[in-house]
């Protein structure tokens, strides 16, 4: 489990022995539901080699590039020859792709300290600082130390990325490995056995994949609201800014210059024809402006859009930033709206949106603003409340708290609603997975037969009924697996963004 990054440990001195405690790494565990999607997108972004690397690394938890290469070669000995490329070419391609994946942070180096529990690491750092002092620290000093460590941590997160990039730019692979090693050696906390090995281990960086998927989702928002051209523009901005994104919780993307943007736009983008000008804007010549001007117009439209995701960087002209926080909120909100609409119907969404906009409201006000009869509204409010979307706040007018003299105010708290939905989504994922085991267990005899070596060699040993049953099983399993993946995807939006 430690090899697969799903368990972390902590060591503690108890009397005269050292006791090791283990803890499940929940974040990493939950990410495992996304593995199929990671594989699909590895192929999309890094071709066949990317998928091979990702699946090999995922199968082993963490690997060095050498081990990874060996494993891929071992597993695909026969198929390489079919593709008509020499072994050497293939090795080169894989190495290149591996470098690219590290460079784009889809793979991340594993530090020895990654296997320690995060809380323990923080405590150790804190202790080191306090040990330097002669007196026990005051509360203010302690807070100061903690803030300092926190800043150091985020700086490390930043600098290691920059450092990685610099070494990669010198492009020779062996050099890069050596550099990496030296950097780690100076870290000074090489405790784990695996790190005694001379090479650096890499694992899949789920967070980077999630960042990219989120960016795609943000761009898609603009396609539904405006048009495909708007999506392409936003997509390009996010792609340019992606390199500097560190984690999912950032508020803003780094600023992007409009000239750089113009040069990076995809060639098939249609800027001029997709804009409809008012006649008085075109002037007497009645000709549309050129692409450059149209891009300016597009940026203006995007900036003035009610979603308010794209913003001008304050103080600098021609620089655009994307409010990732606002975008995440909108993504979450629209996902919850879609869930409520498909689960209950659009009148429920109406109530939800109204409360989101107006804050706390009473039943009667809701009925009046939503133009629905009170008795319908009451029923809808209770349904949404039991579902975890709404909150009820009681405000008694008198001290006796009599129900007749109490205001009952309803409100929507988006984070809380998201939490409650995430719970339900995980429940559904668990159900789907359990059902998958059940479906397999039902046909255990058949599956056992399929595993026999003689049946594997000659499919004709299965009779027609058995073959049909196998087909059914496969489609059932596919259905369940695909559904689990889709639900996991929704959970990511609600939980991680």
């Amino acid at each position, binding site marked *: 489990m430690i090899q697969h990054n799903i368990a972390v440990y902590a060591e503690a001195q108890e009397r005269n022995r050292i006791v090791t405690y283990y803890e499940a790494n929940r974040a990493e565990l939950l990410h495992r539901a996304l593995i199929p999607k990671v594989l699909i997108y590895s192929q999309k972004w890094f071709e066949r080699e990317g998928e091979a690397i990702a699946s090999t690394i995922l199968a082993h938890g963490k690997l060095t590039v050498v081990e990874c290469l060996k494993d891929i070669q071992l597993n695909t000995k026969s198929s390489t020859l079919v593709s008509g490329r020499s072994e050497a070419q293939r090795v080169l391609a894989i190495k290149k792709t591996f470098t690219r994946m590290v460079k784009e942070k889809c793979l991340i180096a594993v530090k020895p300290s990654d296997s320690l529990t995060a809380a323990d690491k923080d405590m150790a750092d804190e202790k080191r600082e306090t040990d330097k002092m002669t007196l026990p620290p005051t509360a203010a000093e302690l807070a100061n130390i903690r803030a300092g460590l926190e800043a150091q941590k985020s700086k490390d997160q930043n600098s290691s990325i920059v450092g990685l990039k610099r070494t990669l730019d010198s492009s020779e692979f062996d050099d890069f490995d050596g550099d990496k090693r030296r950097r780690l050696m100076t870290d000074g906390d090489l405790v784990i056995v695996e790190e005694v090995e001379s090479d650096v281990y890499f694992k899949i960086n789920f967070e980077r994949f999630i960042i990219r998927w989120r960016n795609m989702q943000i761009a898609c928002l603009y396609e539904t*609201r405006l048009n495909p051209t708007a999506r392409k523009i936003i997509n390009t901005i996010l792609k340019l800014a992606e390199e500097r994104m560190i984690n999912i919780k950032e508020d803003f993307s780094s600023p992007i210059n409009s000239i750089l943007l113009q040069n990076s736009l995809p060639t098939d983008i249609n800027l001029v024809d997709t804009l409809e000008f*008012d006649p008085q804007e075109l002037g007497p010549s009645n000709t549309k402006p050129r692409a450059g001007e149209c891009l300016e117009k597009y940026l203006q439209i995007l900036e003035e859009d009610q979603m308010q995701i794209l913003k001008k960087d304050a103080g600098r002209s021609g620089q655009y930033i994307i409010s990732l926080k606002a975008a995440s909120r909108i993504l979450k909100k629209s996902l919850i709206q879609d869930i409520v609409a498909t689960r209950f119907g659009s009148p429920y969404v109406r109530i939800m949106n109204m409360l989101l906009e107006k804050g706390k409201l009473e039943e009667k006000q809701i009925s009046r603003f939503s*133009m629905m009869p009170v008795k319908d509204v009451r029923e809808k409010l209770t349904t949404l409340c039991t579902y975890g979307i709404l909150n009820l706040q009681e405000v008694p007018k008198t001290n006796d708290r009599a129900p007749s003299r109490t205001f009952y105010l309803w409100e929507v708290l988006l984070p809380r609603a998201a939490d409650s939905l995430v719970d339900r989504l995980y*429940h559904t994922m668990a159900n789907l997975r359990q059902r998958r085991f059940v479906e397999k267990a039902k046909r255990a005899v058949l599956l056992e037969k399929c595993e026999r070596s003689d049946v594997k060699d000659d499919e004709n040993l299965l009779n027609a009924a058995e073959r049909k049953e196998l087909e059914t099983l496969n489609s059932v399993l596919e259905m369940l697996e695909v559904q689990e993946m889709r639900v996991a995807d929704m959970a990511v939006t609600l939980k991680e963004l």
Partner: protein
Amino acid sequence: MVDSKSLEDLFYDECSKAGNNGLTTTDFLSVHKECDPKDTALAMNALLTKGYIEVFQVRGELIYKALKKEDVGKAGALHGEEQVVYNTIRSSGNEGIWTKHLKSKTNLHEAVIKRCLRALEQKALVKAIKSVKHPTRKLYMLMELTPSVEVTGGPWFTDQELDVDFVEQLTHQCYKYILMKSFPRDPSCIFTSSHNAYPSAAAVRKYIMEKRISQVELSVDDITMLLDVLIYDGKVERFIAQVDEDWDDEDMDTESDWVYKAVRDKKAESAWQDCPCGVCPVADFCTESGPVNPAGCTYYSKWLDF
């Protein structure tokens, strides 16, 4: 010496002049010193019985108010309790008065009030109505008055109930109109940000009234209510119109600066609801080892039946 008949007229005229503020006996006698207080009292009594004037008590003083002659005709024909009930109902105006309030105001017995109301209804002087706010209450008001918006709930109510279909249809029409105005004909195109032909509530109202979509007269406020609903539905957005000097004087009928822009229609989709768990009514009881469990779930069996 003024005879009793002309004294009545005189007092009535003075009351009418005083208007809504009313008149006290002292006021009257200070103006018409020639009148005898006793005769005046008699005249006032006569007027009261005929229903020409009303009496109120304000800070220990009795104030008299004149009633319009045309109202008097009806009330004058009434007597005693009926008249009291009639006057109380009349004072409630177009809001109507609830029988229970009627009772507390008149201090009459319930049976008496019931009898009076029946009599008044027979004479077609008052009518019973129902309020939107309190559907169980029976309100009374004068026959010739139309109930206020407070009572009827405005154009959205038919028979004291919200006309949901009517509202839905109208909102849909509003949305269609705004959508038409929000995007160019070619669906892959968008307007530039200087485009300023987005409709305001007044423009939507004009469209609705011109197309005769509604049989009922609707105000801009009514339309704004519908548009608010569309905003909550996430179908339109509202923003302050750009002020363009050249175009300013052309749309004088727009009172508010808010204009509306449609959001492209998007079908709500959720992958979760594609599987039984997303719509399961008993999901809260579903556990691995409980009576409701994924292994024996009939919804799943149906879903996975190929």
